[in-house]
């Protein structure tokens, strides 16, 4: 283990932190439990939530604390209550601790005090448990629906255990069920962006309230294609199967999700991963980062009309894609990570392929960076645009390059060393400007760092097994797994269950923490830069879906012909 990793994972420091919390809230804490190496679960009463969470997250010395995830679970079959866990992590150079602040909520009184007024980063989490579990955050500043569609009936909570995953409640769309967008500020017009917009690769809706071209305020809406993956994972799939579904949460950073899930289960079940597998996981994660960052930089170029940069970035990305295909059998969704290790080994010929591609990539990318940064018009478009202040980044618990461009010095690879990162040397680029250019530069530097990490990993990779045998995962163990996806920290929470199945699985993609900060970055900018700012956050792209129409009367799935499809999409989009 490298020196820096030893320092961060110092057991004494961790103890001091945990003790401080216990000392301070001695009379409020019901139970403390260590779930895994760096994870402590602290149970408190629900009334004390804002105070305890506010204390940890705004602690003056623990820099870069953030709300990593928040899990609501229906534990009624186990304890007759619902549970909430706020996972707060301490990042940066201060240490490596996850606090799981847990509380139980009874079914009769499904209310809890909202943390959002103290820490806005909890906004989405609390709205989500309201939608999916029916737990009501009291004092939440924005209690609109988040996840469920407009026509989903009130009082049906899909994540409760009494809701079967194949259930489909009767839904009726009326005019009243339209989403309650904020009224435009006086004297502004609405500039709707999405869900169908050429420059948005994801169906999200931004409602820009504009004065001419100046964005005065922003409202948004997401979750147009909420797929209910967590529900499927809890009901239908076995531990192993979940891994592949987890990989398909995202079309870009699948391995990060698969890895986070695998690590969570490994932490919960105490599975030891062979060292060689850790190295292979690291290389795969970095290859993924390479292609994701190149994609994002290319899209940033495309969004400002600089198609030369776009095409060149994609040409470079093609090397990475080719490499991934040779290493794993596919350009994306590598399918490498499974619980306990990886599926394919790096054979010698593959190793030399990696070395060759990495070399080409380094040269090509340096040339690309020179060319792009010397294109004045490109730099002009990115400089000073979409500024996210450090304060806002912290307020919203932002992660990844989005936060690092605003001066937040956090990176899960370094702060919570997982896989083989603890054996490797690398820098975490941080820029303080907070504009689109800063984020582009963070990504550009990370590409070079990733290349360096891969080179080290290949050199230092030990021999041995690539997959640990595991027999059984003990039930009702809780743990979080975390990875640094290209867009930032991904956190998966698992609570193991019986019969080779999960009891609760909570996925938190990095965009979940980054997205709510977008309005702050967009306010005061021009409409022209809206898509650029959105792209610079690098939102998650949803996988394409096939259109199928369920005929309500016969209940049959009817497959559309091409002609019908065209006609239907025209009608639907024009609202005829």
């Amino acid at each position, binding site marked *: 283990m490298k020196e820096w990793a030893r320092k961060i994972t110092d057991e004494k420091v961790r103890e001091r932190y945990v003790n401080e919390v216990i000392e301070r809230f001695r009379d409020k804490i019901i139970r403390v439990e260590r779930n895994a190496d760096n994870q402590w679960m602290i149970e408190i009463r629900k009334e004390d939530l804002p105070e305890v969470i506010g204390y940890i997250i705004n602690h003056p010395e623990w820099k870069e604390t953030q709300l990593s995830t928040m899990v609501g679970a229906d534990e009624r079959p186990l304890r007759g209550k619902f549970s909430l866990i706020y996972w707060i992590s301490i990042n940066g150079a201060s240490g490596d601790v996850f606090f799981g602040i847990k509380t139980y909520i009874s079914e009769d009184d499904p209310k809890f005090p909202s943390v959002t007024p103290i820490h806005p980063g909890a906004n989405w989490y609390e709205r989500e448990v309201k939608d999916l579990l029916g737990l009501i955050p009291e004092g939440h500043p924005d209690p609109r629906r988040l996840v469920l569609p407009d026509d989903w009936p009130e009082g049906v909570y899909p994540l409760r255990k009494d809701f079967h995953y194949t259930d489909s409640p009767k839904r009726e769309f009326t005019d009243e069920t339209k989403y309650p967008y904020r009224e*435009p500020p006086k004297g502004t017009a609405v500039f709707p962006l999405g869900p169908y917009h050429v420059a948005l690769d994801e169906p999200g809706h931004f409602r820009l309230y504009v004065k001419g071209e100046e964005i005065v305020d922003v409202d948004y809406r997401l979750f147009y294609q909420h797929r209910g993956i967590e529900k499927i994972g809890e009901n239908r799939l076995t531990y192993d199967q979940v891994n592949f579904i987890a990989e398909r949460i995202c079309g870009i950073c699948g391995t990060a999700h698969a890895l986070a899930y695998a690590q969570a289960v490994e932490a919960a079940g105490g599975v030891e991963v062979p060292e060689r597998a850790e190295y292979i996981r690291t290389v795969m994660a970095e290859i993924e980062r390479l292609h994701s960052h190149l994609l994002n930089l290319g899209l940033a170029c495309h969004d400002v009309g600089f198609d030369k940069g776009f095409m060149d970035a994609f040409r470079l990305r093609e090397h990475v894609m080719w490499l991934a295909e040779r290493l794993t059998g596919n350009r994306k969704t590598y399918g490498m990570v499974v619980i306990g290790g990886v599926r394919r080994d790096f054979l010698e010929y593959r190793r030399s392929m990696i070395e060759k591609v990495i070399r080409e990539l380094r040269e090509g990318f340096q040339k690309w960076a020179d060319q792009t940064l010397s294109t004045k018009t490109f730099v002009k478009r990115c400089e000073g645009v979409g500024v996210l202040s450090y304060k806002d980044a912290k307020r919203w618990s932002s992660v990844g390059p989005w936060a690092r461009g605003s001066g937040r010095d956090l990176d899960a690879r370094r702060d919570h060393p997982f896989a083989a990162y603890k054996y490797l040397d690398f820098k975490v680029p941080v820029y303080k400007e907070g504009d689109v250019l800063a984020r582009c530069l963070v990504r550009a530097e990370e590409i070079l760092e990733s290349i360096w990490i891969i080179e080290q990993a290949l050199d230092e990779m030990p021999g041995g097994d690539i997959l640990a045998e595991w027999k059984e995962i003990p039930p009702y163990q809780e743990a979080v797994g975390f990875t640094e996806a290209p867009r930032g920290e991904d956190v998966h929470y698992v609570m193991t269950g019986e019969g080779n199945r999960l009891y609760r699985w909570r996925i938190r993609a990095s965009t979940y923490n980054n997205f709510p900060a977008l309005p702050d970055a967009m306010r005061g900018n021009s409409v022209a830069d809206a898509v650029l700012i959105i792209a610079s956050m690098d939102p998650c792209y949803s996988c394409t879906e096939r259109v199928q129409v369920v005929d309500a009367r016969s209940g049959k799935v009817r497959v559309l012909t091409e002609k019908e499809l065209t006609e239907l999409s025209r009608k639907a989009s024009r609202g005829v």
Partner: protein
Amino acid sequence: MKELFTLTVILYLLSILAVLPLRKNYRASITVGHVFTGLASISLLAFTAMSLPEALKGKAIEFTYNLGVAEIPFHVDGLSLVLCLVLGSLGLATSIYSPKYMEFYERFGRGWLYVVLYSTFVLSMVLIVTTSNFLWFVFFWEVMTFTSYLLMVWENDEEYVRKAGWKYFVTMHVASTLPLIVALALLYAKAGSIEGLNFNNLSKLHLGPIYYLLFLLGFGSKAGVVPLHFWLPDAHPAAPSNVSALLSGAMIKVAVYGLIRTTCFILGLNETFGYIVAILGTVTLTVGTLYALKQTDAKRLLAYHSVGQMGYIWLGVGAGIALMAKGGSYAAFGAIAMAAGLYHLVNHAIFKGLLFLSAGSVLYRTHTRELNVLGGLAKLMPLTALFTFIAAMSIAGEPPFNGFMSKWMIYQGTFLSGDGLLVFCGVMALFISAATLASFVKFYTTAFGGVPTRVTENAEEVPPSMLVGKGFLAALCLLFGLIPSSIIPLLLAPGKVLTGADLSGWISTKYWLVTIKAPGMPSGGETYFNPWLLVGVLGVLAGAMLVSYPNRPKKVVKVWTTGEPVKMEHYKLKAMHYYGPFEEYIHGLYHSGDVLSEWGSGVCSAVAGGYLALGKTLLRWADKVGRGITSAGRWYVENGKEVYLDEAVASPFVQLVKGLAIGLEELSLNYNLLLAVAVAVLGLILLILAGW
């Protein structure tokens, strides 16, 4: 010919007399009054048409009215006829338009007084542009200013109207009337008699550069030339729209007439003066139009454009003066440049009149002139939309409308002058033409484009009489755009008279083809434009496409909101946000414009201060007289319920005093009195000079 002119005057006077018995009936009084003014306008147009052949020959019609106490000499030449044409056509349009429109103002009552003021106002302008005696010129000028002021404050229950009116009143007297009076006094001292103040007598005198300055000041402030434009954007929109049309369409043109008449015909052509006028024009067109760009009040926007378009006229006239003064081969070219300015004068009168009438129509139906809340009127008021579109494209200078022809000639006059300075003025004119376009694209699309808003959804097309009034002007827009030869010869007349040059080699107008030649031009370098051929080509091309790709919407769908519903009222750019980045960029220019405007009003108030100080010294002895007049006025007002025939004649003047008093209430009593005295002194000077 004289008879037709006399008929015009008589018809205007008759309109005054005819409404006096109808004071109880608002609508009838206005209708009857406007029937007479309409007839008067027709008669004026007839007079113009009849006199045309004479004017084209470079001759003038001269006659004199002997009123017993005084003789008013008249001299009607090409320049006068240009203005007569403007006054006649605008007068006719407003006369048709007004009866219905004035219903909007019924709550104020006093319909007869409106007609009296209207007729006096228009008549005074007719007389200004035809009289050939400077004393009478100034007298009518003052009558025009005074009646226009009273018309302006018609909507006197509105704070801003009274303020704007007062601003107008003070500025006009200080910056326009006063210099003219001073000039009059100086000239009278030189000429020695009233007959000596006849223009042809004055032109024989040797007059110094001070007169240029005085006339520039006097007419410049009336025309709204920067920096003395600050009153105009407040004053013109304050009036009822039909009056605004006359103010912007005609009154400020009279100032141009005055400028040309005095400085070119009386004082003589001066190159430096020409440059000054051209530069002032360029500054004015730039400042006025760029300010107009950010207005969202329909009428205020139009008023700022009046400032801007006056700049074009001044640029044309100034270039004309400078080039004509240069002499030689440039003399003829200068005449063309001046004709371009005059062409724009006529055109501006027509399309700006039409625009104000359109804004009035919108106001009439929607009770608002705020472009931010208007929308979708094209569907509800299709003809108004069409006429507005024609006017908007005319003022924006798009072929084949009239505005383009005059702007094109102004470009020719400046770009081909061979003079860097004038070329630069032309460049600015070209740039501002784009700004004008921007502004009117905004004006048209915010009011008429899109879907109706809550404010406009109940609007409907205005009554036919209003449409006819506007349609007449729209037809003129097309006529002067498509058949430039119908007017260019007349416009060339003043230049011909001034220079005595033969223009046939330099400009030719054959039916609808205009060809211009400039000094130093290489052979085969003549520029020409044939609007009919353009329309033909456009029509054939567009028509062919329309036939090949017929345009019949079978089904109309909603606009694309990228997938989420958006309320239509929120899905439109607000008028105030059009061209935001551009306006933001030139805010420095706005700032300097503000400074100029402050400077102008500063000078104005300084002069006003001095003037008031003079008045103060006269206050003491004038106090008694003033009080006498006021109390007499009050007595008349209070006891004037039953008006006998003799009083019917006096009553208007009493009402004038009353109107004045209403205006004066705005300021402190002391200031009030001071200005009352100042006005009285002015009148006194006039009377003394007139030899009464």
